[in-house]
């Protein structure tokens, strides 16, 4: 009987299909910005909460769907009879109240590490959002750090890091899904977020509150290192750049007004409008997560940044020759 054959065939293929989908699903949950591939305790707890809610929701949906299909398609004379009001009170009133009363207290404590009080010796990083980049300032902490960076957040593994979140212009939102939930950065307000990484890694983050023209291109990378590696990195970042008077790129950099907006510690550049470039060569990307750092990309950015990231405040240096732009780019790339 054709009917039976179809049934048998379905019976065999259904589990295979389920397993296939599951594998795809799990593989599909990974990504440098995925909340489902947590690398820190807060994000981990929230991911667990998600899976609990997800499977509960699947169960509840299946139940409601089955009831609906039964009510709509089962032959009326073959239906079990119900007391309609009891059905509504039990299914629509009692059941949701029960589920929600379990869920609410379950959800309250999850991820509370993001708000926890931290001891005074905790590493504190001030992150200030600008249209459309991130100013990152390390101040105080165990090794009495004091330096600025931009668009990259280095943290030591296995210990809480306190972020002080502020904005210099409009509302932005700090979101590093693999470590924690997001928190808004509101002008005139100081918000706090405690993050922690369980393992070394590179995680991508992005502004999550619409903040104007280039909102889509306001990303950053967080790099979690073993503590000793982190402190080596911090030590290097603290160091000003040695003077390099003969460098053609440095000369062009100074000559073309770059120093009005950018700082290169140790050199004459002290501008605060744009990102601190003291160690820009050590960063993985330029333009707030836009392009990998390389002399070619920096030169490209110099000539076409308004096309690459419309609205950004930096002028295009189209009037310079490609040679000059490459000189500046090589100079910047050398700032490690």
């Amino acid at each position, binding site marked *: 009987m054709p009917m039976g054959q179809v049934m048998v065939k379905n019976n065999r293929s259904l589990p295979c299909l389920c397993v296939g989908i599951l594998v795809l699903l799990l593989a599909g949950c990974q990504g440098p910005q995925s909340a489902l591939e947590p690398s820190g305790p807060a994000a981990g707890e929230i991911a667990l909460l998600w899976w609990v809610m997800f499977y509960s929701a699947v169960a509840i949906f299946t139940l409601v769907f089955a009831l609906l299909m039964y009510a709509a398609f089962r032959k009326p004379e073959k239906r079990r009879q119900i007391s309609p009001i009891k059905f*509504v009170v039990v299914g629509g009133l009692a059941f*949701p109240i029960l589920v929600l009363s379990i*869920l609410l207290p379950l959800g309250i404590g999850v991820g509370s590490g993001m708000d926890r009080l931290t001891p005074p010796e905790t590493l504190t990083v001030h992150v200030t959002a600008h249209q459309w980049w991130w100013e990152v300032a390390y101040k105080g902490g165990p090794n009495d750090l004091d330096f600025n960076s931009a668009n990259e957040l280095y943290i030591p593994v296995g210990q809480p890091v306190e972020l002080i979140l502020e904005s210099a212009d409009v509302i932005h939102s700090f979101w590093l899904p693999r470590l924690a*939930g*997001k928190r808004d950065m509101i002008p005139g307000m100081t918000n706090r977020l405690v993050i922690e990484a369980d393992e070394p890694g590179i995680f991508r983050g*992005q502004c*999550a509150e619409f903040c104007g023209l280039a909102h889509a291109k306001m*990303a950053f990378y967080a790099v979690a290192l073993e503590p000793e590696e982190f402190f080596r990195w911090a030590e290097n970042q603290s160091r000003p750049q040695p003077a390099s008077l003969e460098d053609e790129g440095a000369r062009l950099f100074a000559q073309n007004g770059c120093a009005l907006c950018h700082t290169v510690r140790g050199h004459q550049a002290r501008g605060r409008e744009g990102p601190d470039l003291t160690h820009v060569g050590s960063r993985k990307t330029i333009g707030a997560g836009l392009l990998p750092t390389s002399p070619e990309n920096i030169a490209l950015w110099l000539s076409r940044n308004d096309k690459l990231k419309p609205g950004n405040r930096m002028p295009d240096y189209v009037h310079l020759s490609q040679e000059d732009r490459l000189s500046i780019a090589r100079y910047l790339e050398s700032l490690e």
Partner: protein
Amino acid sequence: MSAGQSTTPPPATAVSPEAEALFRKTWAPRTGLGRLSAVNNSIIGRRFIATGFVFFLIGGLLSLFMRTQLLFPENDFLSEELYNQFFTMHGTTMMFLFAVPIMEAFGIYLIPSMIGTRDLSFPRLGAFGYWCYLFGGILLYSSAIFGAMPDGGWFMYLPLTDKQFSPGINQDFWLLGVTFVEISSISGAIELIVSILKTRAPGMTLNRMPIFAWYMLAVSFMILIGFPPLILGSILLESQRAFGIPFFEIAAGGDPLLWQHLFWIFGHPEVYIIFLPAAGLVGAMLPAFARHTLVGYNLIVLAVVGTAFLSFGLWVHHMYATGISRFALAFFAGASLAVSVPSGVQVFSWIATLWRGKPVMRTPLLFILGFIITFVIGGLTGVMVAIVPFDLQVHDSYFVVAHFHYVLIGGMVFPLFAALIYYLPRATGRMLSERLGKWHFWLFFIGFNLTFFPMHLTGLLGMPRRVATYPAGLGWDTLNLISTIGSYTLTAGILVFLFNVIWHVKRGRPAGVNPWDSPDLEWSSVTPVPPFNTRSIPHITGRDPLWAQPDLARQIRDAEGYLPTAEEGKREILATSTVGAKPEHVTRLPHPTFKPILAALATATIFSGILVSMYWLALVGLVIFVVILYLWLWGELPEKETKPVGNGLELPIAVGDQHTPAWMGTLTLLLADLALFVSLVYSYFYLWTTADSWPPVSYEPALSESAIIFGGLLVVLVLATAVAHAGAYLSSRLLALVGLTATAACLVALLILGFQAYDQLPFDITSHAYGAVLSAMGVYVLVHTCLSMGSALFALARVSVTGITRTRSLSVRILSMLSYYTAFTGVVAFILIYGSANMMG
């Protein structure tokens, strides 16, 4: 009416052909240019629905452009600038120009026939609302001509939308266009409330009311309370942009988060303002397809009222990430979870209705099933995002985009398509094609899920909302590709629907009478339904009247009910008591008139004047508006006091006292007005809690002499108004005139004092939020003083010309309401201005 009469239908009335012709002529719409003067709810309702659907197509087109841009990573189909404008206009269009208006439009179109009457209580207000909606929408979209479409998001967060970061005219288009459109939402809400409470067919007590009327009643109240906070916010933001008055400016003691509070106090109820009418339509359609009365009527009514209340207590769940204390968040999380319970009650009631019935599978029922499935998924993810820590991950990500499209498209567009297919035959007299309907459903249903289901995962993988583009390699590429394919599939479904609509006008099977065998009064008429909806007004003895009283539809059509004729050539309906629906009097409705469209044009002049900073133009518009309003309100007295309405009942005509729809209409308008005032007071206290010093250190409070006079005048105003009010009660023309004159004098004195106070402000209004908010409060009181003044002059003229009796004293009663209200707001403002300043000082 006696108890005996309430169980027997009115006896048959023979209507002569002449009387029949006169009746039809009385209700006949005008042709040619006269169409612009239409006020009848059937015509206005149809225009409203059609216009709303056009905006749905425009908003949908914008989203197709966006989906095309997101087809590939780093696509450059749309520039960032255009993408930001498109998503702003997509949200704005769908919320303000499509969802709310089209749902109210269904109320406007259906409510009169559902409650067994002929038209809404304020046909001209309905027409005015329609034109405001149309002109407001055009104003908003005219920004495209200047290449300056709003681009601050539909939520318009500050400081991004302030002059400093958005110097162009883009956001001004938004603030003014949306406020213009909101006038229409509020006028529609007033109309619906008064019509539902005052003009139901005799015998249709509140608990016999069609379920859709309950939904619309609740929603209308939500509009009255929910929209004013946003209107206030828009006014404050526009004043900050235009004049630098610092309500949201941090440097001057303001707070950008105040905008978020005002926006979401509106914005969350808004979601239910969209969903509830759609759920109401499901309740109205389901019995016809389930072949069973709606299960759990009382529970559903409780659920609807509960949703309406709860929806005002959870706006902060849009602001979890702003850094609010965990304790406060727990409260709002609880409220957000609680609001899902009433939805559970409704879903199970619908399932139970199907379960108990013998479902007939037709296209509208398919859409209802699609609605329940989709909405349940949206509800489940809604519960998830109410949980604070989870929301901190997915807030402003594609997960939330998926969630609210499941709720809004699932909760509103699926029922809308069901309702369009179900109710179009009422208007056109022809049925749509079932075959095309099934294609429409499956393309739309599959396309919808293909578009939005993957977005849950896209969001969890970290993709934020409102990004014009995204880099490759983050795991978002395939998901976005699927979503875009889905959006084209969904569009194909809509195109099939459009084709179906065009096809059915000429080729559809004639619908006849009650093609779905519905139990409700809106199907009592032949199709297409004539403009008077209900040929004669029936007597209702229970729910599901067309099933319970099989002969009722014929009786209505054969003019065997109340008001079978229009022998004076006037459009008339019955006004009945609010709870028991006992006949009270005959209400006369206006005939077609150009005043609504002219008033809307004057309003458009006001808004355009403000938009281009030509304030004299706005003033000209205002003067024209006031003149039209006076002409509008000056109604003629009936030629006789009472008339027989059939069934041996003799009722008074066009009464002018507290039983008059216009009286109740003014009261409901004041409710919206009060919501605006409360929002302003809320802003005052909110800024107090966030400011460093409140009032600012430089401010020196003093209870000046003129302030004491101001306070005294408020007391005198109440007394003077009370005298006029007493004149109305005692039918004394002299007392009324004395009271009115005294009231007017008092108001003039208040106005002079008020303007003086503004002339000699002890602070610079642009220097601090404190002075800004207090000035706004002062302006509010002054505006109401002017309103009362206008009303007092009108009443003076009216009483002088037509005299006053207890039952013909509407102008004085309305003035009293306005005047008392003005005094009340004056006292509150007085306490806040002088009391708090002195207390703090």
